[in-house]
């Protein structure tokens, strides 16, 4: 900075084309966008409310509300419930992916993102990667509380980690659905309404809270194909120390279906977004 003239200062930061670096690779670009999500958490820590308070509330509420009635005692129920409540907490939180994106789009920042010479899905993928950190935090809180309430997985600590990975893979895949809806719906309120409409049956008509054997036949049919049940079954298997390969495989199949189904539609909507 030799001169003080604003005009020459601006000229001084212009770089000829030969000095331009190659734009970031798809992976690197996605990671940069994930870092943006992290920085946002640092500046607006309130947004962690849903991933901290919500899991505590859910775990305590369902354990003590249903424990005695459903399994005879809270202690017995905890063994059944905690893997399910772990999955439920994370799956409920995936909904906020859509809300965050919807707010982002309302502002001009996606214009900037889309005009950059990087892989176009990177901002969406990055946001979803950033969300993984939120899911991990929520998961850690749920599991810690579960241990305090007496949950003891027979598979040990490693089994908890494996189950967590399964759940995060599924949550990442499911988030594409929220991404698509966020791109389709105009207002935050509408998005919230639609999200709850989808989430409630997914979460409650599953094997999270009760054994489906007690349900009417038609409902059992739904519970069985419900991907949330698939994930919870696989996680229970793993945490009880007897993982079932076919159940785990099914989680990956469902995740692949969700990404293959909602990912391209989301990208198409994203590219056409006015």
């Amino acid at each position: 900075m030799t001169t003080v003239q604003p005009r020459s200062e601006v000229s001084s930061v212009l770089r000829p084309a030969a000095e331009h670096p190659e734009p970031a690779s798809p992976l690197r670009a996605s990671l940069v966008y994930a870092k943006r999500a992290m920085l946002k958490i640092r500046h607006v820590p309130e947004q962690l409310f849903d991933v901290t308070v919500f899991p505590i509330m859910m775990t305590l509420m369902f354990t003590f509300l249903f424990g005695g009635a459903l399994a005879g005692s809270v202690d017995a129920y905890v063994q059944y419930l905690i893997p399910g409540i772990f999955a439920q907490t994370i799956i409920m939180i995936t909904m906020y992916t859509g809300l965050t994106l919807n707010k982002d789009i309302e502002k001009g920042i996606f214009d900037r993102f889309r005009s950059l010479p990087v892989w176009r899905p990177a901002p969406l993928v990055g946001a979803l990667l950033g969300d993984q950190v939120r899911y991990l935090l929520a998961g850690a809180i749920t599991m810690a509380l579960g241990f305090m309430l007496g949950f003891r997985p027979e598979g040990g600590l490693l089994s908890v980690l494996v189950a967590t990975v399964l759940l995060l893979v599924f949550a990442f895949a499911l988030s594409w659905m929220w991404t698509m809806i966020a791109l389709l719906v105009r207002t935050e309120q509408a998005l919230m309404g639609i999200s709850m409409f989808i989430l409630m049956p997914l979460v409650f008509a599953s094997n999270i809270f009760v054994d489906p054997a007690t349900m009417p036949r038609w409902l059992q049919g739904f519970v069985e194909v419900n991907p949330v049940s698939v994930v919870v079954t696989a996680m229970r298997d793993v945490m009880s120390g007897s993982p079932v390969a076919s159940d785990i495989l099914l989680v990956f199949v469902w995740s692949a279906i969700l990404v293959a189904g909602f990912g391209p539609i989301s990208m198409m909507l994203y590219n056409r977004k006015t």
Partner: protein
Amino acid sequence: MLDSPEPAVVATGLRKAFGGKVAVAGVDLTIPRGGVFGILGPNGAGKTTVIRMLATLLPVDGGQARVLGHDLRTAGGEIRRRVALTGQFASLDEDLTGRENLTLISQLFGYSAGEARQRARELLAAFGLLDAADRQVKKYSGGMRRRLDIAASLVVTPELLFLDEPTTGLDPRSRNQVWDIVRSLVSAGTTVLLTTQYLDEADRLADRIAVIDHGRVIAEGTSDELKALIGQGTVKVRLADPADRRRAAELLTALLDSEPLPRTDPVEIDFTVTGDAPVAEVLTRLEAAGFAVTAFSLGQPSLDEVFLAITGEPSHEDADDSREDPE
């Protein structure tokens, strides 16, 4: 190809509709390399839509365009490497600081983490934002935001920069800063395409101007050519007594050799005049004829008058016409 580069933009018959509403109804534009090209028009004329299509943010419905020699429909990626857009609304992350915004964008352009921090620092310094570097963007003033936004577009120097209404809503000082930035970019070889609602902005900055209304280019040329089309300025006279209006208007029509512009104000008479009109005589003649004048001014034609001169009707913002208002 290298020796004689294609124009920055060649567009023919560009069209875009939003759910049946026509926003851009067949725009032809040829924008030479270098210098500033201005797109002038009222709100809803289709300026933003044109710019967003050319910047590959909106798919086109019809027509063709080549941007920096690359086809808009097939080479979006190539175009995005060479252009940058500063939108009408700050395209920054308001929750992050100015430094974080620029660092992230620098990394996306391919700078390593360390280089990106250095690049962000250079840009912040050049745009006078070093003091505010570690504040959240939501706490920035309008002018600071705009400068940061433009800085973000210059992380890698674009060959073509789109500026969508870069000074709308800015105070005069910030506006001058933006103009200075544009001028230094142009002197360094970047082509700037800017949209504006202000005639004087187009006049001061742009080498060529396209006037756009209802999604069509209705006039195009240098500032001087357009001025020749619409007259050099406007004489505005306010009379004390509305009863004098008709006779005063007759007198001035003869003097200035120009028809009065349609006005609803009963005491106001406005004329568009050319450079050699005897405007200095207006006051003395009116006084000699015994008309009391409460106000007199000589000004640049307003955008409204430009539209009046070119289309024979006021810009559609305040006109009661039945045509579709895109947007």
